[in-house]
């Protein structure tokens, strides 16, 4: 039984009209929703309010972070050594792959330059931690500890060590909200690494399943294919792993095959992610990038002498043609 208070309402002659204030507040709520959703005019209001929310979110995050810190500092020596060994082994392996990758990247850039299509490769990244805060359980969103103060912008791509993680949906002053690629409202253009088939991967609301609803029955896709980002739409850098196809089910009568994929990024286990900046792919025939040393030397060797009389003397002192040949 609820405790009665001494100031219970009189039954007759209530002190203020409840219905009127309810109506006013309800209308204000509806107005807020319309302004926020349809017109997006509340960025500033949301900014002020998130300044109130930020300390609360930090306070919720703090005990979890402190606990991690404590367990980390009391981690025993042998485990740290073990971890260290594993990491250096992985680093060696990664460096080995990187050596090959550097050559490939150069080649790729040259090829793309020829097509006057600058690649959307990430060139700057910022590490951000995921705050230990639960947002809506039915939306795949997380809160990062970096915001407008750190240059984060709406629509920025977020990656982790294994692949594409999501994109920034809301930017506040010191925090930002990220929508994961597994959110049911998210879609990302992808390409099969094996067959080059382009399609769209849509989130399902399940953190280890994406769905590819627009793959026709005849298309060349099978389980185990790696899906990489295409860079179309300009949100995500191109060529990063997104997901691996886990199931392809073809019903001959249907137009589309049932295709599922598992995201390569560890969406539900990550603690730290990368916010990346990259030059969006430029498709307009702008001036070719000639600042690159390798590009100019290539350009100097490729066309025969006498093609560009004005450019030849400029290139000659930097790299004499006889020395170029064995390279």
């Amino acid at each position, binding site marked *: *039984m*609820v*405790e*009665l*208070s*001494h*100031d*219970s*309402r009189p*039954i007759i002659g209530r*002190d203020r009209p*409840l*219905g009127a*204030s*309810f109506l006013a*507040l*309800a209308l*204000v*709520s*509806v*107005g*807020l*929703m319309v*302004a*926020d*959703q349809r017109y997006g005019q*509340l960025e500033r*209001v*949301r900014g002020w*309010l*998130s300044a*109130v*929310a930020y300390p*609360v*979110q930090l*306070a*919720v995050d703090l005990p*979890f972070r402190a606990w991690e810190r404590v367990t980390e500092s009391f981690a025993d020596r042998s485990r740290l050594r073990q971890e260290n060994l594993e990491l250096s082994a992985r680093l060696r392996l990664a460096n080995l792959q990187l050596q090959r990758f550097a050559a490939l990247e150069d080649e790729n850039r040259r090829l793309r330059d020829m097509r006057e299509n600058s690649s959307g490769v990430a060139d700057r990244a910022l590490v951000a931690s995921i705050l*230990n*805060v*639960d*947002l*809506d*359980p*039915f*939306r795949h*969103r997380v*809160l990062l500890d970096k915001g407008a103060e750190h240059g984060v912008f709406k629509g920025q791509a977020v990656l982790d060590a294994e692949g594409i993680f999501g994109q920034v949906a*809301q930017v506040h002053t010191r925090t930002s*909200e990220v929508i994961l690629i597994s959110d*049911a*409202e998210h879609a990302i253009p992808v390409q099969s690494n094996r067959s080059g088939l382009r399609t769209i991967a849509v989130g399902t*609301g399940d953190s280890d399943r994406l769905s590819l609803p627009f793959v026709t029955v005849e298309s060349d896709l099978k389980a185990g294919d790696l899906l990489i980002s295409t860079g179309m739409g300009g949100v995500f850098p191109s060529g990063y792993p997104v997901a691996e196809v886990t199931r392809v089910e073809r019903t001959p009568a249907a137009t589309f095959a049932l295709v599922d994929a598992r995201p390569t990024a560890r969406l*539900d286990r990550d603690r730290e992610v990368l916010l990346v900046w990259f030059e969006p792919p430029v498709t307009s025939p702008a001036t070719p990038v000639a600042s690159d040393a390798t590009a100019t030397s290539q350009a100097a060797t490729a066309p025969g002498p006498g093609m560009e009389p004005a450019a030849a003397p400029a290139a000659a002192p930097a790299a004499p043609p006889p020395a170029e040949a064995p390279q």
Partner: protein
Amino acid sequence: MRPSNLTRRLFYWLSVAAGLVLAIVPLPEWLSPVRPDLALLAVIYWILTSPRIAGLGYAWLAGLLLDVLRGMTLGQHALGFVLVAFLTHRIQLRMRMFPILHQAGAVMALLAVYHFVIFWTDGLTDHGYTGSDRWLPVLSGGLLWPLIVAAGDSLLRSRR
């Protein structure tokens, strides 16, 4: 002596703030959909015990703060909170005479109204999730109600 209005006000605000904080504390994934709406339960409790303190404006503000904390469309939870607070005010004289189980049933009806508002506005803003587990907080809130009443009443009695 009964607790003064000031201490009641203080308790009211502290309990609603605690409810708001608990609304974003990370839970294991299987438990997360069951998370009861503690802030709203606190608002209902205080409207029943001290209706003059727990007005509609405060309930609305608590809902708005929840919107900001969770990054939802502004006004969504605010509308749910103010509607539930209004309904509770209308039936509070009857509701506090109910036996506790009956009261828990009424609270579940209020929570269902609240979640319907959220569901509806989610649908309008294209965030619709139609799984049946989104109604689980109605059940968990109803089961938790006797505990909340017990905790609140003992808090108020200890301040007498």
